[in-house]
């Protein structure tokens, strides 16, 4: 019995090790001057997308629901944490401020996760997909007309700049479609460590997801994915466990949004669109549903490649689409599954024959 525990623990540590190894390689390349400026600029965004795809994998891969609104949760996390950072910029030193900002982003995104999850997790999976998509669009629409400012009297919220009625000396934080500017400047002193911070966040996220899925709640979550009625028949509350996975996933997506917002000098809501949600979904599909290491590797490769290969970017989306369809057919079509297991058996059979000989 010890063997099982060791096996999953070992597996978990391979994942941590892989992340640390990649980090080390990048550090060595960077310190020896072998990392182009282009690639250096990609490091933090890669961390952002890695966290986002890990988060989506929890929902898609483990709880078996499709969310098309993960960009919405990132958006909520990004904006709430950016506001927090701007409001507290004079009050708290940058390191604790960033930690608090991350928590703010995670908690706000989690709250939205619960609010969205409660009504829709009772419904069929397709409905969940479309409602999360709708949610992403609603968020985008609303933040597009949202103005937030701060002055001595406190926080002001309005739907136009004029309605903010800030006192002289107050400053606008969210400017509607123009978004939030200057968040990264608030962290000038630790800006160089953002990649390190990103990697640490990835490790924490991995810790949370891996330990969750290999626990009592994780079994409940995967059991509801595999067979909803059977799960209920052994006393597992399907809605509650799906909501748990969804909320944790939303919180993690929020964290990705925080990192994204704080790495940029200009944060605009238009980036958090349907395409972003789909891009993350492609990373999850290509890396393998329920495969965390796969998500990380797929994100790194798919994010970096188009940026590095000029001319590829015109075909990028087309190739994503084809890859997505092909992967789904290959992995899920019963005919393809039979074919693969026949091949596997053949190979195994050959092995046995050789042994006998």
């Amino acid at each position: 019995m010890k063997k099982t525990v060791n096996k999953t623990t070992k597996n978990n540590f391979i994942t941590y090790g892989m992340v640390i190894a990649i980090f080390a390689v990048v550090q060595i390349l960077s310190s020896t001057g072998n990392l182009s400026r282009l690639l250096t600029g990609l490091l933090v965004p890669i961390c952002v997308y890695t966290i986002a795809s890990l988060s989506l994998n929890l929902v898609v891969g483990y709880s078996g629901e499709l969310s098309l609104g993960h960009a919405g949760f990132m958006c909520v996390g990004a904006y709430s944490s950016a506001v927090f950072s701007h409001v507290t910029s004079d009050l708290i030193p940058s390191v604790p401020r960033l930690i608090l900002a991350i928590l703010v982003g995670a908690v706000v995104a989690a709250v939205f996760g619960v609010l969205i999850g409660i009504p829709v997790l009772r419904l069929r999976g397709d409905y969940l997909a479309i409602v999360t998509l709708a949610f992403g669009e609603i968020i985008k629409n609303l933040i597009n007309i949202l103005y937030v400012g701060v002055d001595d009297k406190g926080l002001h919220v309005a739907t136009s700049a004029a309605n903010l009625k800030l006192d002289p000396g107050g400053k606008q934080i969210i400017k509607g479609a123009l978004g939030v500017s200057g968040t990264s400047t608030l962290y000038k002193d630790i800006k160089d460590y953002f990649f390190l911070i990103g990697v640490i966040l990835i490790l924490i996220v991995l810790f949370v997801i891996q330990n969750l899925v290999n626990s009592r709640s994780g079994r409940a979550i995967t059991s509801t994915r595999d067979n909803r009625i059977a799960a209920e028949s052994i006393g597992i509350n399907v809605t509650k466990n799906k909501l748990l996975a969804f909320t944790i996933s939303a919180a993690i997506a929020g964290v990705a949004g925080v990192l994204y917002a704080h790495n940029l000098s200009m944060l605009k809501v238009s980036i958090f669109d349907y395409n972003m949600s789909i891009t993350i979904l492609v990373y999850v599909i290509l890396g393998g549903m329920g495969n965390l290491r796969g998500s990380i590797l797929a994100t790194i490769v798919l994010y970096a490649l188009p940026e590095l290969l000029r001319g590829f970017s015109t075909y990028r989306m087309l190739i994503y689409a084809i890859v997505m369809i092909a992967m789904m057919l290959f992995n899920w079509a019963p005919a393809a599954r039979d074919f693969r297991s026949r091949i596997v058996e053949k190979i195994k059979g050959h092995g046995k024959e050789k042994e006998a000989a």
Partner: protein
Amino acid sequence: MAMLEVNNLSIQFGGLHAVDNFHMKIEKGELYGLIGPNGAGKTTVFNLLTGVYKPNEGIIKLDGQDITGKSIIDINKAGIARTFQNIRLFKDMTVLDNVKAGLHNHHKYSTLTGILRLPKYFKVEKEMNERAMEILKVFNLDQEAELLAGNLPYGKQRKLEIARALATDPKLLLLDEPAAGMNPNETQELMDTIRFVRDHFNMTILLIEHDMKLVGGICEELTVLNFGQVLCQGETSKVLKDPTVVTAYLGE
């Protein structure tokens, strides 16, 4: 007191009386069979007993407690566990995890304990592993604990489903055609296992079955269902000789 007592149970789908005025009484520790021609409403009775469907009329009492109209989850918590005619395993989970999922409500720790790997996590997981292996051994599945449930051969999948149901520590176990798709050898082995489960766990078992050899071999009492109604009820040997039963099965 009877372990299960059902009175006047009815459900209609549209105008169809799928189950009509059904009644049944099972004593503690009994091995009870529910038989009948195809479409007689046997699985519907199971679905009513386990809360998948809500009855239009009638009362279901488990060990004296009224469980009529409760949810699937609450009925399992009250003490009924079941298997399914078309196997419903957690295919992409290991055999061991399937059984541990069944232990969900009996060995508890919080989600946070699990994520943070607090000492309680290790303690409870160890208990769960031991208990799950104990159950798997009964079904000779302990060697396959690490395999994915979906990769088990058919007969073993049926057994694993029983193991998972037992893990919820039920008072009453419902088996929906446990021998379906098994060869005679496997069926014989299954009969021994069912008897062993009854004796070893002191379990009350209600099963639906088509295999008359199995039914005649292990069930002590039978209810025969035809067109949603009770056709005949009583001791197995008597029921099987009843002329109305013979007619229902063989036609006029």
